[in-house]
C-alpha cells in the first residue's frame, strides 16, 4: 500500500535495498578473489563431488525437457512448411545457445543455490560460523571459496551433459512424434551447427555459475538469527538469482550477437 501513499519513499527504499545487496555481493567477490589461493583442497574435492553428483539427475531431466520441448515447438513449423532438413539445426541452435544454459542456470539456482543458502544460513543461525572463527578458521576460505569454485566448474561441465541430452532426446522425439529419421536430424544438426554456438552456451553457464554462487553465499552469510527467516531467505535468494540470470543472459546475448 506504501506505493500509493508515498511513491518516492517506496522507490527510494527499494533502490537503497538493491544497492546494499549488490554492494555486499561485490565486496564478497573482492574478498573471494583476495583469498582464492588459500583454498582448502579437501573441501573443494568434497564440494565438487557433492554438487556434481547431487545435480546430475536434475540436469539429465533438464536436458530431456529442453530437447523434447524444442523439437515439439520447432515441429509445428516444420510440419506447416514441410522443411524437415532444418529441424536438427533449429533444435540445436536455440537449445545450445539460449534455452539449455538458461534452464540449467535456473535449475542449478533452484537445486544448488537454494541448498547453499539454506546450509550457510542454518550454520549462521546455529552459531557454527562463529565457532569456526573462534577456531581461527576463516569461513571464507573454508566454506565459501570451495563452493564458489565447485559451482563454477560443475555448472560448466554439466551444461555439456545437458547439451548432449538435448540432442539425444531431440533425436528420439523427432523420430517418435514427427517420424523424421535419425540420420536426417543428425545430418542437419552437424552440417549447420557451429562450434561457436556450443561455446557461447558454455560461457553463459560459466557466468551464471559465478552469479549463483555469489548471491546464494551472500544471502546465507547475512542470515538473521532466527530459524524462521531461513525459508524466506532462500526464497529471496532464488528470486534474485532468477532475475540476475535473465539480465545477464540479455547482456551476454547482445555481446555475442553484435
Amino acid at each position: 500500500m506504501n506505493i500509493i501513499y508515498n511513491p518516492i519513499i517506496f522507490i527510494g527504499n527499494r533502490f537503497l535495498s538493491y544497492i546494499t545487496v549488490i554492494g555486499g555481493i561485490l565486496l564478497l567477490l573482492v574478498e573471494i578473489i583476495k583469498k582464492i589461493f588459500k583454498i582448502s583442497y579437501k573441501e573443494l574435492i568434497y564440494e565438487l563431488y557433492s554438487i556434481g553428483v547431487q545435480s546430475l539427475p536434475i540436469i539429465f531431466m533438464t536436458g530431456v525437457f529442453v530437447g523434447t520441448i524444442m523439437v515439439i515447438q520447432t515441429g509445428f513449423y516444420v510440419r506447416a512448411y514441410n522443411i524437415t532438413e532444418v529441424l536438427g539445426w533449429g533444435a540445436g541452435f536455440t537449445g545450445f545457445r539460449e534455452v539449455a544454459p538458461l534452464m540449467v542456470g535456473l535449475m542449478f539456482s533452484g537445486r544448488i543455490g537454494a541448498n547453499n543458502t539454506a546450509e550457510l544460513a542454518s550454520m549462521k543461525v546455529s552459531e557454527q560460523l562463529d565457532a569456526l572463527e573462534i577456531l581461527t578458521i576463516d569461513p571464507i576460505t573454508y566454506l565459501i571459496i570451495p563452493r564458489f569454485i565447485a559451482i563454477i566448474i560443475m555448472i560448466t561441465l554439466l551444461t555439456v551433459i545437458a547439451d548432449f541430452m538435448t540432442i539425444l532426446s531431440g533425436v528420439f522425439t523427432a523420430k517418435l512424434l514427427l517420424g523424421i529419421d535419425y540420420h536426417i536430424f543428425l545430418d542437419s544438426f552437424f552440417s549447420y551447427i557451429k562450434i561457436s554456438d556450443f561455446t557461447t552456451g558454455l560461457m553463459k553457464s560459466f557466468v551464471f555459475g559465478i552469479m549463483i554462487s555469489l548471491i546464494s553465499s551472500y544471502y546465507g552469510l547475512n542470515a538473521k538469527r532466527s530459524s524462521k527467516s531461513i525459508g524466506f531467505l532462500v526464497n529471496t535468494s532464488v528470486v534474485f538469482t532468477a532475475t540476475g540470470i535473465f539480465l545477464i543472459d540479455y547482456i551476454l546475448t547482445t555481446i555475442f550477437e553484435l
Partner: protein
Amino acid sequence: MFIFKLLKDFALYLGGLLVYSQKHSDGIIRLLLKTIITSFTSKLRLKETIKQAYFIGYKTIPFISIIMGILGIILVTEFGMQGIKITGTATEVGGPYLQLIVRQFGPFITGMMLANRVSTSISAEISSMKITDQIDALKMNGADITQYLIVPRFIAGFFMIFILIIYAVLVAEISGAITAKHLFNVPYEVFINFQFVEKSDIIQGVVKSFAIGAFIPIIGVYSGLMSNEGSKSVGDSTTRAVVMGLSAVGMIDLVVGGAMFILT
C-alpha cells in the same frame, strides 16, 4: 570390474530416483484431487483467499514484469538477427514471435518464475507452521487442514496464475514491439500481428496456464507439509519446492505441448 560396479551403482541410483519421484508425484496428485474435492464440498474462507491472492498475484507483478520484459528483448534480438541473416529484413518476426509467446514462452517462463517465487514462499510458510506445531494445534481445534489452509491458497493461485500469465504475454509483446522498433526499425503496426495465432495456440496456452496454476500452490503446500522437526527442514523444504516446481512446469509443458502436437 570397476566399470560393472559403476554401472550397477548408477542403475541403483536411477531406480531409487524413479521410486522417489513416483512416490512424490503420486502424493502431489492425491493432494491435488483432495483439494479440488474439498474446494467444491466445503465452505471457502473468502478473506484468507483474497489475502493469498494479494500475495500470489499483486506482489509478483514487478518480478514478472522485469523477467518478461527482458525475455521479450532477448527473443526479439535473437529472432531479428536470424531474420536479417536469412531474409534480409526483420519485418516478419512479429507474427511467429507472438505465436511462440502465447503457446510456449508465456506459460513456461512465467510458470518457472512462479515456481521460484510462489511455491517457495508457500512452502516456507507451511513448513515453519509445521515445525512450530501450529498445524497440530489447528488439527486439535478440529479444523480441517485442507479446508483451512490448502484450499484458499489453491483457489487464489489457480486464478491469479492464469491472470499473471495473460499479463506476462502482454508485457513480453510490448517489450518485443519496442525492441523491434528501436533495434530493427519495424513499425508497431507491422510487428503486432495476430495472423499466426490460431485457436489451437490459444488452447495450448490456456491449458498450460491452468495446469501450472493448479500445480504450483499444491507443490508448495506438499513440500511444506513434508518437513519434520528442526529449523534446517525449513530450508530443505524450500529447496525441495523449487526443484519439484520447476520439474512439474517442465513436465506440464512437455505433456500438453506433445498432446497438442499429436491432436492438431
